[in-house]
Every structure is written in structure tokens, then in C-alpha cells.
């Protein structure tokens, strides 16, 4: 048997559950319910009602990515440090939450952040006032960062771990202070990891679904929730067509970010995880 055949089960799986459904989505996106060709489904996209949701998704995904980078980079740097013996176990700790279902983690978050939740009970016990978190944009952002942070830490960690430490020693020997070592050597060399992390956080964040509805008590919905609403609850007879065109637009957004990644990190040094 030729070696190339070994992937046949997976290829069949992909054909059945990724390629064929995608073709359906394309078909619905460009047709009317009667089956004639149209571009009208895409015009819906620019209606202010939908534009607001898309812009909110982009904004929150950007904030989320920035926060993940600010929190994740120092973490990765710390973990990749030389002479640090417990790195493996800490990496496992970072991975641990990812083994649990995302919805469960979000429900747990609701319990923690609720008006009468664990966090507020602790604050009150300390004599500090209550914080209003659930139902705000901040809660949604916290939920997104919490869920996607590991996707930022891991690729940066991979790149930093592989970095030749003698380069840093050389920089120090040649008179660089620690700050300049960071800005002139470490950060530039870890760009592939950063790009990989940024893409892997931004993509799922911008298309995320259910997290925002749950943590905002249904007040803030993102693009994923919009598509869900159109498919499942809308009474519009074109709902499958409009929903498909929206899904396609989100897909294009993801493809653009992958293209961007390829350009900055052509050899997937950031441990390309797809």
C-alpha cells in the first residue's frame, strides 16, 4: 500500500464534514431560496444593524488579542527562561484549562463573577464594595482573554525555547543592557511566535460565539451569535442564504489573517498549529 493512502480516512472525513458543507454554504450564499444566482445576501452585511455587531466583534477581538499579548509574552519569556526547571509542569498548567469544554469554563466564570458570586462575596468579606462585572463589555473581554490566552503563550514559548541562548550572551558581551537585549534581540527573534499567537487568538475571538451572550446576560452579541440567530430564529425566508453569506464573510476574514501569517512567518516557525 502506498504511504500516501494512509491519510485516506481523514481525507474522507474532511470531504464529508468540511468540504461538502462548505460547498453548501457557498451555494446558499450566492442564491435565493428559489435557487437563482444573487449577490443580494451580501448587501445585508452592510446594514447598520449588522455592521454594529461586526464592528463590536472586531473591536473586542482586537482588545482581547492585545491583552493576551501583554499578559502572554512575559509569561512565555518566564517559562522559556534558562535554568528554570519546572517549565514543563507550568506549561501543563497553562494547557490544563484547555482540556475542559469552553462552555463549561464560561459557566464557571459566570458563577465566579456574578453580582452575588464568589468574587463579590470575597470582596464584601474584605469590606470592599461589590463590582458589577457580569453584563458589561469588561466581562465579555475577560471571558475571551481567559479562553484564548493559552493560544498566545504556547507559540511564543515554542519560539523562545528554540532560541539560541548564546545570541543573548553575545549581545550582553557586546555591551547591551537588558532592555536593549529584549528590544533588539529577543523580541525581533520571536516575531514568528508573536504572529502565530496573534492569529490564533484573533481568529477564534472574532468568530467566538455564546461566550459573549452568556457573560453579558444577552446584552452584547458578537458575529457568531448573529449568524446563529439568523439560522435558528430569524423568520426571514432567506435566512439560510443570508446566514451562509455571513459565514462566508467570516471565513474570508480568517483566510486573510492566515495569509498575513504566511507572509510574516513563511516557514511556520511559530509552531503553526493548524
Amino acid at each position, binding site marked *: 500500500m502506498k504511504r500516501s493512502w494512509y491519510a485516506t480516512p481523514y481525507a474522507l472525513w474532511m470531504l464529508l464534514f468540511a468540504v461538502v458543507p462548505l460547498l453548501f454554504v457557498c451555494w446558499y450564499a450566492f442564491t435565493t431560496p428559489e435557487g437563482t444566482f444573487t449577490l443580494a445576501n451580501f448587501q445585508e452585511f452592510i446594514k447598520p*444593524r*449588522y455592521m*454594529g*455587531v461586526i464592528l463590536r466583534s472586531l473591536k473586542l477581538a482586537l482588545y482581547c488579542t492585545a491583552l493576551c499579548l501583554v499578559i502572554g509574552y512575559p509569561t512565555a519569556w518566564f517559562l522559556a527562561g534558562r535554568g528554570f526547571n519546572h517549565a514543563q509542569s507550568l506549561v501543563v498548567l497553562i494547557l490544563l484549562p484547555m482540556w475542559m469544554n469552553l462552555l463549561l469554563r464560561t459557566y464557571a466564570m459566570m458563577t465566579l463573577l*456574578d*453580582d*452575588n458570586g464568589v468574587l463579590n462575596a470575597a470582596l464584601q468579606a474584605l469590606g470592599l464594595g461589590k463590582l*458589577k462585572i457580569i*453584563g458589561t463589555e469588561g466581562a465579555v473581554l475577560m471571558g475571551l482573554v481567559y479562553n484564548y490566552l493559552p493560544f498566545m503563550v504556547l507559540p511564543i514559548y515554542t519560539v523562545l525555547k528554540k532560541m539560541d541562548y548564546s545570541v543573548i550572551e553575545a549581545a550582553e558581551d557586546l555591551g547591551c543592557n537588558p532592555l536593549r537585549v529584549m528590544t533588539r534581540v529577543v523580541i525581533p527573534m520571536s516575531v514568528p511566535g508573536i504572529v502565530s499567537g496573534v492569529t490564533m487568538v484573533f481568529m477564534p475571538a472574532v468568530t467566538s460565539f455564546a461566550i459573549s451572550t452568556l457573560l*453579558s*446576560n*444577552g*446584552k452584547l*452579541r458578537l458575529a457568531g451569535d*448573529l449568524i446563529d*440567530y439568523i*439560522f*435558528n*430564529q*430569524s*423568520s*426571514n425566508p432567506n435566512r439560510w442564504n443570508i446566514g451562509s453569506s455571513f459565514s462566508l464573510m467570516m471565513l474570508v476574514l480568517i483566510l486573510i489573517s492566515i495569509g498575513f501569517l504566511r507572509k510574516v512567518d513563511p516557514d511556520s516557525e511559530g509552531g503553526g498549529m493548524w
Partner: protein
Amino acid sequence: MKKIAIVLLVALLIGALYVPALAEADKPFAGTEIKVYNWYDYIDPEVLTIFEEETGIKVNYVNFSQNEDMYTRLSTGAEVYDVIFPSEYMIERLIKEDLLAELNLDNIPNKANVLDSLMDPAYDPGNAHSIPYMWGTLGIVVNTEMVEEPVTSWNDLLNEKYAGKIFMMDSVRDTVGLALKNLGYSMNSHNQDELAAAGEWLMAQKDSGVVGGYIMDQAKDMMAGNEAAMAVMYSGDALYAMEKNDKLAYVIPDEGSNIWVDGMCVPKSSQNQEAAECFINFMCRPDIAQKNMEYIYYSSPIKQVVEGLSEEEKASIAMNPTEEMVARCEYYVDNSDVAYMYDDIWMDVLM
């Protein structure tokens, strides 16, 4: 020794043949599997076990949280269900679209137990397609300790003193409907101007920041946990919350509200209609209806259950609204021809 073993074995074999034969007589549908599609949290799970034991029918029990979700799953034919629990306006729509089987009422003798006032309704003349399961109203649950002023009107949901503590429903018909009712229009309005006014009322409410959220099932727990001051809720959820927190009261606003009936129907695509009817008949049995009512806190339409209510329960607005209150309320009528107008408003509020 060997002989005894053989005798025992033979006896066992005969017994094994004999027992199912016996069971067959009073369990005509034993071995059938029916798929029951009901609202979340809307049955006493024990009832399903009793049904399976008594009839030998296996129940595959699945849930939805909105009529519209249920409609999508059913109408696309993605799955085949044997018993569904739509609300009255959805029943009307499903009949119009020829998606419901005509019930053989001879198989449902327990229909005689249903309150006469809920039988032969306008949405399904002669109960040809549906038997009422539960009924109730839409209203406001108020935490009387947090809210000082009396709540009598939908407009009390605009009170900025309770900003962030007022919860609306994530449900297009109920939320747009109450805005319409508040402005003195029908909850089934087809009028573009009336709907636009309702939309403005909801937007103004949202923009003022009083709304803590648009939620469904969480509302009862939030009210029970003193996390909300007011929440729009179905009467059954209200009873559930009031059971857990005695500071709560249920109000049917003066402007009027919605009265609803959830029915039990058999989709046309069902292959097991008789077993499904057997299930519906079972659900109308007084002891079973009583169990369900005690578990989910909704008002049962079964006469024997209503007669057995305590004085306290009979006095409860949520459990047993007065005739005058019911007269203020309105059934939803299928609005699928103008549903896009409701949708447009709702999307603006929600998204």
C-alpha cells in the same frame, strides 16, 4: 444434578417466552421508541420513567428553549419527532403548514380531564391536532423588598432606580408583544406604525441602561437569588422563583398581557402515531399531571388537579389568575406573514 440443571434451564426458557407474551397484552407498543421534543425543564423526569415501565415504550427525550428553534428543527425535516410541545400560535402555524398529524381522539380518552375553557380553542378547532399540556400568563416578577413602589404597569420596567436590575426575555414574541400591549395595541399587531412605536419603546429602555439583560431560564434563579429587582417571566417560572424566595410577587400589568397554552402534538412525519397518542393520553392522567405540576410549577389544565389546589394556591395570581385578569390577556395568533417586521425590531434591540 445434570437433570435438575436441565429442568431449571427449560423452566427458565419457557418463563422467558411466557413473560413477554403476558406483557404484550397490556403493552401493545412495547419496544417502540418515541422521540419527545419538549421545552427545557418542563417535565418531571420521573414521569418518563413511569411511562417507560408501564408501557414498555422507550422515550428519547430532547429539548428546545424557544418555539422558533423547535419550528426550525421540525420544518427542515432534520429530525423526526413523535411528540412536540408547541405554544398555541405555533400550533396554528404548524397546522397551516400541514406539519401536524390529525389526532385520533379515541386513543386519548383522558382528554375529558382537560378544563372545558381550554378545549376546542380558536387556534385548533375541535382539538384535532393538539391537547393542552400546561397554561399560564406572562407577567412581571417583583422583588418587593428591593422595589418600594407598587408595580402595576409594563412602564414600571423603565424605572431607572433599578438600572441593571431589570431583566427582559430573550424571546421576540413576548418582548415585542409586551411593548405593544403597553402602548395599548394588540400583541398580534400587523400595523407598521404600532410596531415601530413598540420598537422605539424597547430601544429607549435599552439605551437608558435599565436593562440588566435579555435572558430566559436564568431569570428565575436570579430572582430567587435576590440578584434582580424585576424580571419579565412566564407564570410557571414565576411560581418556581416565588417558591424559593418569599419576597417575590407576580404581577399581570393593568395594560394586559399574554395568556398562553402549550399543547401536545404529533408531527405528520411521525412513524409511531399511536404510541405518541398513548404518551399524550398518559400525560393527561390526573396523577401524572399532578406530578408534573409539582415539579415544574406551571398550571395544569387537568380538572382533578385544579380542584385539588390548596386555598393558598387558588389565591395565587400566577397559579390561578382571576377571570378579570384573564379577560385582560390575549392569546398570540400566528404572525408568520409579518414575522419579518417583528424580527427587524428584535434584531435592533438584541444585536
